[in-house]
């Protein structure tokens, strides 16, 4: 009788443990099941970091930055040193989801036909684009696709025919920046430099409101006024 109880208890214990481990395994994402089954987390992981924080759940992509920046040693315990480049190597000219079409589970940036909606996202959260891409990334492609000046022709100009760019630029210049910012070679300066045909772009009272600026030496005044 005692033996039967011991066997049943043992089987029950194994079932519970395997259920817990199975659930944990799904969340942990990294396939290090042997270590998990032997409960040797602290062998590798810094136990001062709660494992929940490192769990690669559905919102992990949104929050991984803080861990990666401040506790990158934790990442390196499972991932290779070049793992970050899988998504952050924005100079590869091949989207991560195209590079790994079989990996449907990963939250890669720019999934699907991203190019069809990228102009919407660039307006909504422009800083997201510029975290990885420089403006030349946009410009090169837009020239190739005849969306931007510099193309052999410009049949795909996205602006309507009676385009009042001044009003739109004053309303939200970030939208303009999505296409037209090229540092010192920006399209605005082409016309709005001091003495240029575009005239003075500053609103009334600009000089009075900015007494500390020296237009001969301060960046970015010098692009139009200095040197």
């Amino acid at each position, binding site marked *: 009788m005692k033996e039967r109880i011991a066997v049943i208890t043992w089987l029950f214990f194994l079932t519970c443990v395997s259920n817990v481990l199975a659930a944990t395994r799904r969340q942990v994402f990294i396939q290090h099941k042997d270590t998990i089954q032997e409960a040797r987390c602290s062998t590798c992981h810094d136990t001062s970091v709660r494992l929940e924080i490192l769990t690669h759940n559905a919102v992990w992509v949104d929050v991984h930055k803080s861990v990666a920046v*401040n506790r990158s040693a934790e990442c390196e315990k499972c991932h290779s040193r070049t793992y970050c480049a899988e998504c952050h190597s924005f100079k590869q000219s091949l989207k991560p989801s195209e590079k790994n079409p079989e990996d449907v589970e990963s939250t890669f940036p720019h999934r*699907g036909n991203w190019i069809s909606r990228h102009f919407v996202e660039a307006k909504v959260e422009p800083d997201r684009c510029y975290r990885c891409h420089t403006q030349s990334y946009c410009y090169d492609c837009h020239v190739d696709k005849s969306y931007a000046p510099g193309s052999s022709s410009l049949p795909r100009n996205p602006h309507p025919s009676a385009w009042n760019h001044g009003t739109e630029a004053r309303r939200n210049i970030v939208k303009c920046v999505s296409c037209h910012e090229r540092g010192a070679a920006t399209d605005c300066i082409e016309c709005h430099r001091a003495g240029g045909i575009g005239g003075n772009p500053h609103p009334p009272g600009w000089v009075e409101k900015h007494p500390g600026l020296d237009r001969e030496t301060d960046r970015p005044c010098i692009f139009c006024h200095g040197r």
Partner: protein
Amino acid sequence: MNRSFTSMCSRGVFFFLYFFAVLSVGVPASSSAYSLHTRLRTIVTVYPDVRGNVEATLAPLYEFADIEALDVGVKGLEVVFSGWAKVETWDWWKEERWKGSLLYGYVRFRSSDARLDTKVGRMLINAGAAPLTLQMDGGYVSFSTKGGTSINLYTGIPLNDMDGSRKGDWLAGFRAGHRWGTRAELGVSYFLQKEREDVNFNRLGFDGWFHISPSMNITGYLSYDITYSRLHDSSVTFSYYPASRMWKLFAVEAGTKSAMSFLGNQSVLSVFASGDYANLKVSGLFEVSGVMVGTGYEFLMYADSRTAAHRIYIKAKRYFDGERYLLLLHASRLRSDTSYTELRFAASALILTSLQGNVDTVWDVFDEEVREDMLWSYESTISLKYELVENVKITAAVSIAGGVEYTWRIKGMGKLTYEL
């Protein structure tokens, strides 16, 4: 040094390193004093595209190489390499038949006993006030004390896409932090980047995390522009991990972004910029009958134009038969100047022991016609992955897409992966 010469030199360096990398694959790791981890991927894609006003068929061949040699002679000494090359095999544009770049390529020494970590070469920097994944050629050193204080220092030459010449460009930065056991950490950082005599970035940063309790924590950062004496960007995230079988995570994130935070000081538009905005995001994660569900709402408020954008999303994931089958559904809705709804369906199945089949479809449905009467876009991909022999996998995929640039397009892809 003109741009083409610089480009030629960097190509030469790249191909030399790549040649070294490929040769190193032939060296069995077990026969040497170091351990070698290698991943080589050869990818070929075929698809039609528009170049200028001419339709062309492109078939680029890519080679991606990731090599890590660990404990090379001395424990803690590493050589890390990651690069790629592309050749247009069918048609090429602007005589750019070859392309490639070295993403990482550094020698590293780290010692847990000495609490030291050093790198020299090309690397990505993620420390404090530095922009995300800053790529530079230079040096990095990090050391920490038993008491919890850590210091990171780095300096080098940035890689700049906007200007081929790097003459006179340099950057430097540091982060100093202190950790109070498992409770909290605070860090202060500084980052300066110059292009010749121009200051691109001159930032002061603060970051930290605090575990209120074992199930609650706060993490955040703040970046301040010294040149313009104003806040660059900031973010605070509160996370709660409930001790519940159903609820797994509840998080609230609030932050601000300024136009300068993405333009950098190099932009003349910084003067006119009025694109500051704030965001608030609430997200949660729960599990019901084996289905993992992540959901959230994000609100973005643009300071100058007094307009707002809203995004709501839900993601669901379920494994079947252990982890043999996977089903994934994703829906999101963006409400802004241009509103759209995104739907994604993906599934994966282990058909045979070594054969995995996948399908992935994304639809975007816009509220009103945008760009050349387009109301929607889509892309569907079917892929098969087969393990030929141990460490060697082959993947074939075909996708059909339609949207802003074409009514429909078919794209083929083949990949050979070698991992050791």
